[in-house]
C-alpha cells in the first residue's frame, strides 16, 4: 500500500479515537470553551446590532 493510502487510513478512525479518548477531560475543556465562545459571540451580536 502506498504511503498516502496508509496515512488516509490512519486518520479515518478519527471519531472513534476522539470518542474513546478521555471523555471527562474533553467534556471539561469543551464546557469551558463553549461558555467563553458563546458569551463572546452573543455579546458581539448584541453589540454589532447597535450599528445605526
Amino acid at each position: 500500500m502506498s504511503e498516502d493510502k496508509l496515512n488516509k487510513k490512519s486518520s479515518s478512525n478519527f471519531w472513534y479515537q476522539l470518542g474513546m479518548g478521555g471523555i471527562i477531560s474533553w467534556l471539561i475543556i469543551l464546557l469551558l470553551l463553549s461558555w467563553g465562545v458563546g458569551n463572546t459571540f452573543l455579546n458581539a451580536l448584541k453589540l454589532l446590532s447597535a450599528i445605526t
Partner: protein
Amino acid sequence: MALASWLSRENTIAPATYNRWRVPPAALAVHLCIGQVYAFSVFNLPLSQVIGIDHSASNDWSLTDIGWIFSLAAVFLGIAAAFGGRWLETVGPRKAMAVSAVCFGGGLVIASIGVSLHQLWLVYLGYGVISGIGLGIGYISPVSTLIKWFPDRPGLATGLAIMGFGGGAMLGAPLSVALMDYFATPESVGVAPTFLVMGVLYFLLMIYAAYLVKVPPIDWHPKNFVAKKSFSPSKGVDMHDAMFTPQFWLLWIVLCFSVTAGVGVLGQASLMIQEIFGSTVTVAAAAGFVGLLSLFNMAGRFLWASASDYLGRKVTFTIFLFLGAVLYALVPGIGLSGNLFLFIAAYALIISMYGGSFATIPAYLRDVFGVKHVGAIHGRLLTAWSVAGVLGPVLINYLREYQLCIGVPPVEAYSLTFYIMAGLLVIGFIALIFVKPVQQE
C-alpha cells in the same frame, strides 16, 4: 521523592497502545489558562481605582504604570519561551507544565498580595515576571508534545493547542469581571481576591493538565502511518544548528511580518472602526467588532492549521501573506466606500489568518527541521512575535498620529499604515519563497 518521580519524563512515557486523543485536553487546558493574559485589560480601570474605589485618587496607580504589567508579562513570555525550549525537551512536558502552573498561579497570588498592600513592584514581579515565565513555558510545552503525538496531522495538533490560547481571553475576561463583581465592596474594587481565586483555579487546571499529559514512546507512530525518514521522532536538527540556517531566519521574517499587522490592528480595532465609519459605529458596536475579531482569531488558529495538513504549509502561508497583502491594500478603499459589512468581513478574514500564522508555524518548523527539537526551535522563533508586538502597534499608532498632525482626515488616517502592512506581507512572501527543508546530514 514521589513528586520528583511523578514529574520525571520517564513517568510520562505512554504505553504503545495509549489513545493519543487523551492528550489534547491537557494542551488545551494549559493554553486556556495562560490565554487569560489577553484579557488583562479588564483589570486596567479597577487597578487605577484601588484607593479611590469609584474614581482615581491622587495616590492611585496611573494607567501608564499599570500598562507595564502586561508589557512585562509579554517580555518574560518571550524570554522564557526562547530559553526554556531546550530545558523542556530534556525534562519532558509534565515537569514543564507543573513549573508553568506554579509560576502562572503563584504569580497571580503574589500580584494579589501586591494589590492588597498597594505595592506596584509586587504586581510587576508577580504578574509581569513570574506569571510571564509561566506563560512562556506553558505556551511551548503543549505544542511540542502534541506535534509528537500527531505526526500524520501536525497542523491539527498545533491548531488544537494554540486555539486554546485564543480562547483563554474569552474565558478569562468574563470570569475576571464576574469575580470582581462578586468581591467588590464599598471599601474594595475586588481585584486582590479576584487575582487570588484565579491563581488557585488556574493552578489546579494546569496541574490537572500536567497529570493528563503523556509523551509517545521513542519512534512511536500512529497505526498504519508511515513516517517519512525526516519526521521520525528521534530525528531533527538541533536548536543551535537550526539557528545558523537561513531557513530559521526566513521563517522568522515570515512569522514576524505576517503577524505584525494583526497585532497592531487588534489593539486599535475599536478606535479604528469608529474613526473610519464615524457616527455609524457606536462605542458599543465597536466593542462587538472587537469581540467578533477575537472569535475569528481563535477559529482561524484551528481551521487554518488543520487545513495546512492538506494544503501544505507553504501554500497556507502563501495564502496568509498574498491574500493578506491584497486585503490590506483594499481595506482603505472599502473604508472610504462606506461598506461596513465588507470592511468587517475583510478584517475577520485578516484576523483569522493572523491566528492561523501562530498555529501553523510550529507544524512548518517540524516540516523543515524535523520533530526532535521542534519545541526548542519554536521557543526561539517566538522572538519574532515579540518584535511584531512592538512593531505593529508602533506602526499603527505613530503613523495615525502623524497623519492626523499633517491634516489628513480621520477616515483616511489609517490608509498609509495599511499600505505599509501590505508591503510587509509582500516582504514576508518573498522570504517564504526561499524556505526549503534542511538537509539533516
